[in-house]
Structures are given as C-alpha cells and as structure tokens.
C-alpha cells in the first residue's frame, strides 16, 4: 500500500503488493458505477468539477477495513448490481453500504423499499461454486476465479467497494476519480461496463484475518445549509417555505446533481430567476424559474445562471449520496461556526467508527477458519472478535 494508513488499527489482511499485480474483471453491471477517489482540485477555472466520492467518509470506511491508505480509489456503486471476478490475486475486498435505517430520511411506509429486510451486501462465489453471503463492513479475500456479486443499491443511494491497494488506474490531473463529463480519470474517463479489467494490489500472502466493524452511519436530522449567496432573489415566503418543506428526492438525479420535488419557490420577480452566471459549489442549491431546487453534486458544472438560495455545508454533503428516490429531506440554516462544529463532529464520528474495526473469522470454507484459529493461537490478533457474518 502507499504508506501506512494513519486511521486504521494495525491488525488486518496481509498487506497488498504496491505493484498492481491484482486484476479484477467486471462480469456484469457497471451502469452508474465508477472509479472514484477524493477527487481533483485546482481545475475549476477550466470548467472541470472536482468529481470524486459522493460520500467520502463511507468510501474511507471500505478503505480502512482493508488497511488501504486513505484516499485509495474505490468503486462507487450506483445503479444495477455489479458482478466481478478476480483474474489475478489474491485480492481483498470490502463493501461499505449505509443501512436502510440510516438513509437521508425515512422512506414513508408504503413506498417501494420501505420495510425491506436487511440483506447481504454481496454474494461471494468461490471458484468451486460455493456461495457465501458477504455482509457490508466485512473484508473478504478472493482467490483467482472467485466472484463477487454485489447487491443493487437503492435508486439514489451510493455504496463503495474497496479493493486491496486501491483501484490502480492511472492518475490523471492528480486523481483517479472518474469525471465522465470531462472524460477524465477512471477507465478512459467513463463509467464502468461489463468486460472492463481493473488493476489493483495483490495480497502478499494468504489472508491473516478478515476485519469487520458495525455499520457506519452519518448523523440524522435536517440537511444543514448556509443561506445564499442569492437568498435575496426569493420572497420571504419562499425562504420560509424552503425551510418548512419536506422535499422529495426522485429518480431525477445523477452525479451532477439532484432535482427535488415540492412546492414551487417564488422569486422576487421574473427577472430574478436568472442571474449573470457566476461560480457554484458542490452543494449549491439553485432554483430556476420553475421554482424547484436543484442541488449540485460532485460532477456538477462550475458556473451557473440560476440564483442559489443556499449551500449545503461540508459536513452534510456526504449525506446527499443517500437521497433514495421517494425519501424526503428538510433543510435547516446554520452559520459558519456551526458548520465547522458539524464538520469536527463528523470527523470525530468517523474516527470512533474506525476504532471499532476488529479482526473476525473469514467468510469461507473450514481451512480458512482453521487458519484464523491458528492465528489466534499464535497471538497475532486479539480475541474478543465479533461473531462471523451470516
């Protein structure tokens, strides 16, 4: 791996070879899935968005479970389930999926997806045909010929698949993040497709132990925003309505942005619905003439000609990656001091989660379990390990 991760406990799977000697092949799916990392900076003046993870903390959960360096590129899962096979390995994998109960807001009863029971995040299919459920927040080691079939995330939800050593596609302009609009990063600057081959790190030896943690979760409550910079383009009634409405997320969303459904917000006059284009940010909430908000996300454009009623604070941006279709969200206004306190709180929450990562029994046949026992006896990892998954 590229340097020791500063956030992960010392125990873990065998360290991945820095050379990208591991190889994954996509068997199916990929529509909406992309290689992402923390994104690229310093290019907005060229019209290039940062791209990168929609939910960075969740992606870093997957990296931490593998002992990957922070910032290692993962696969962002959005859209149909992804199936892949290891062609060269062994390769370690871990999935980070937000529990349904921790989505942006509760899905109203009776909606599609409401009350859906928890299910395995993926199914591991060994080369000999053995099928094993793999939970989220649990690492697994795949040998050549093994397959991983990831469950399809709910519409409007993002999940992350980390691989040992990170996805080793070439860096472009300082990042591996796919920005399809600029044809940058990832594989040829595009979303993934069946048949693609992804290089990654290969484990130096057999797995020492797998690692597991309880599900990660962001805080709940309204999505916090700082007002403006064009709040004065709206009537006082529209501003009050913006904060009093349960806005509905829909399928009308992608990595560029999401449209919200609700009451139309009135501009002070017709001319106020258009501004002379100026810069926007990730989290800018634009309101065009139809009065319905559009929240800009990581791949959004860099300038825009609609007034911006508010801007989502940094701490709550990752939560927008889980605006499942049919779910609702509310906005609440905060000042800069509270925005920064929320960011500090979010970081503290992530570190507390990372401290719960513990070794566990591998998902797999008895010989791997025996190996795990042997490791316990040799004292390489401590006991007190949570129950094995499934």
């Amino acid at each position: 791996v590229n340097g020791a991760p500063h956030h992960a406990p010392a125990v873990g799977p065998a360290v991945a070879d820095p050379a990208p000697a591991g190889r994954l092949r996509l068997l199916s799916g990929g529509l909406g899935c992309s290689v992402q990392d923390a994104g690229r900076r310093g290019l907005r003046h060229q019209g290039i968005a940062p791209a990168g993870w929609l939910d960075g903390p969740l992606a870093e959960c997957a990296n931490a479970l593998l002992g990957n360096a922070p910032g290692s590129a993962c696969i962002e899962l959005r859209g149909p389930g992804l199936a892949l096979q290891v062609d060269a390995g062994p390769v370690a994998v871990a999935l980070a999926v937000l529990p349904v109960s921790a989505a942006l807001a509760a899905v109203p009863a009776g909606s599609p997806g409401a009350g859906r029971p928890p299910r395995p995040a993926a199914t591991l299919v060994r080369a000999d045909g053995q099928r094993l459920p793999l939970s989220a927040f649990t690492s697994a080691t795949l040998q050549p010929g093994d397959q991983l079939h990831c469950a399809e995330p709910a519409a409007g939800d993002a999940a992350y698949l980390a691989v040992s050593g990170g996805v080793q596609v070439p860096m472009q302009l300082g990042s591996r993040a796919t920005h399809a609009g600029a044809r940058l990063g990832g594989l040829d600057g595009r979303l993934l497709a069946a048949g693609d081959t992804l290089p990654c790190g290969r484990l130096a030896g057999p797995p020492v132990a797998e690692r597991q943690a309880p599900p990660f979760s962001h805080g709940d409550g309204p999505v916090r925003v700082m007002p403006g910079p064009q709040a004065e383009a709206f009537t006082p009634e529209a501003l009050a309505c913006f904060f009093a409405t349960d806005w509905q997320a829909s399928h009308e969303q992608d990595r560029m942005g999401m449209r919200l459904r609700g009451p139309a917000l009135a501009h002070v006059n017709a001319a106020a619905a258009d501004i002379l284009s100026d810069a926007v940010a990730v989290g800018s909430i634009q309101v065009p003439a139809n009065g319905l908000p559009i929240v800009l996300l990581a791949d959004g454009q860099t300038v825009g000609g609609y007034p911006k009623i508010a801007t989502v604070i940094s701490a709550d941006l990752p939560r927008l990656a889980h605006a499942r279709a049919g779910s609702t969200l509310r906005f609440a206004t905060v000042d800069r001091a509270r925005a920064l306190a929320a960011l500090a709180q979010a970081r503290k929450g992530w570190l507390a989660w990372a401290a719960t990562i513990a070794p566990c029994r591998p998902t797999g046949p008895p010989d791997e379990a025996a190996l795990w026992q042997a490791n316990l006896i040799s004292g390489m990892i401590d006991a007190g390990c949570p129950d094995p998954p499934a």
Partner: protein
Amino acid sequence: VSPAPRLLALGDSAWTVEFGDAIVPALNARVMQLDARVRAGLAAGEPALAGVWDRVPTFRSLTVHFDPWATDADALGAQLLAWAGSAGASEAPGRHWRLPLCADHDFAPDLPAVAERHGLAPAAVLHQLLASRFRVYMIGFMPGFPYMGGWPAALATPRLASPRKRVPPHSVAVAGTMCGVYPWPSPGGWNILGRTPVTLFDPLHRTAPAWLAAGDQVDWQAVDRDGYERIQAELARRQRQREDFLATPEPG
C-alpha cells in the same frame, strides 16, 4: 465610478467577491486583476491563502474555493476584499489566439437565419465574425467551454426557441453578444455559425486540458474544408500543438 466589491459566502468552503452585475470589459478586468493577485499569492505560498484549492473568475466575480478545515475563512475573506478594493481596471494582457474556423454550409446551420434576422447577406455576418476580437470572460457550462464577449450588439441574436438535442462538437456559436465553442457534443441553444478543427479541451494534457483561459483574446481565421481537415489531422498526429495557434509566443 465602480461600486465597492461585495463578499458573499458560497457555503462554508468558498467566497465569492462580486464586482458588479454586467458584462463589461472594465469590470472583468478587475476580476482578472484580483485573480492574478490570488494566483501570485498561491505561487508564493502566502499564509492568508493556506487551504485555497480553486479559483474561478467569471464575468463579474472571483470565487475562491478552500478547505474549511485548513483555512481561516474570515481572515481569507477580509484579505480578498482588501485586494479587491485595490484592483484597478488595468490588467496584464491574456494570451492572444488565432483559431481556425470553417463556415461550410453543414458546419454553419444557423448562418442563414442569423443573416436574415439582421437583413444581411450570410457572407456579411461571417465577415463580422472574422473581424471581431473576442475576449474570454470565463470558462464553464461544460469543461473548456469559453464564454467570449465581442460579438457586435447590432448582431445580437437570441438563443434558438427550441434548443438542439445535440450540438456537434467544435461548433462555434453565438447568443446575445456572446460567442462560444462547444468542446463536446451537447444539447445547446446557441446559433451555430461555423466549426473549428481544434478541440479546445484535451483530457490528456498534463496540467491544462482547457486551451483557453479567462482573460485570453481570440481572433477567428477562415479556413476552407480542406484546411479544416488538414489541421484536424495534424492535431491528431500531434504534428501541430496548441501553442502553434498563439498569435504571440507565451510570455516567460
């Protein structure tokens, strides 16, 4: 008389310094002066700019994006406002480009309608396009797309009533008094008057995929279809570089 610049919070990780609300070269020059000051400060590692990771000059404002964790936002805002107050209208000239343009019938689908609207022959409209000096006010809308001023007010033309679903890449188009170039195939409503063989966005460039930058100047030079195809082929074979299209060599 120029109004005092305004400092606007664009969330917890960006400031917008707004100089006004118009498309005017003198106002944009103040934006570019502030941008030059910020760039110089970043290059020199000035502490006030610690954590700044992006700057976006537009028609009438400069936005500075920063890491809320690593930046004293209030100090940065105060510094930007102080610099903005002293930003005059004299600016270091941007680069000067001479870019080829072909107005063959199928490359310029809106040329007849624009000509008819203003009671001119298509050749006269084309002549204006080639005679005008364009100023890049900002890059945006899509990666590498230049918003260029300089299209005569007498020829100002509204956007198409019904935007095209797919504008061919490299199309040169006008709307209002703006001229733009679509680096990518895209939906679009501007009036297409020609096509350039240059890409204006090269994803494989190591530092600057976008050819043009805010503050640059552009002249269009007519090429026929053969010239268009020859330049396109030479660019594809890397026999021609983007620097070959600069009217004057880059300073430094």
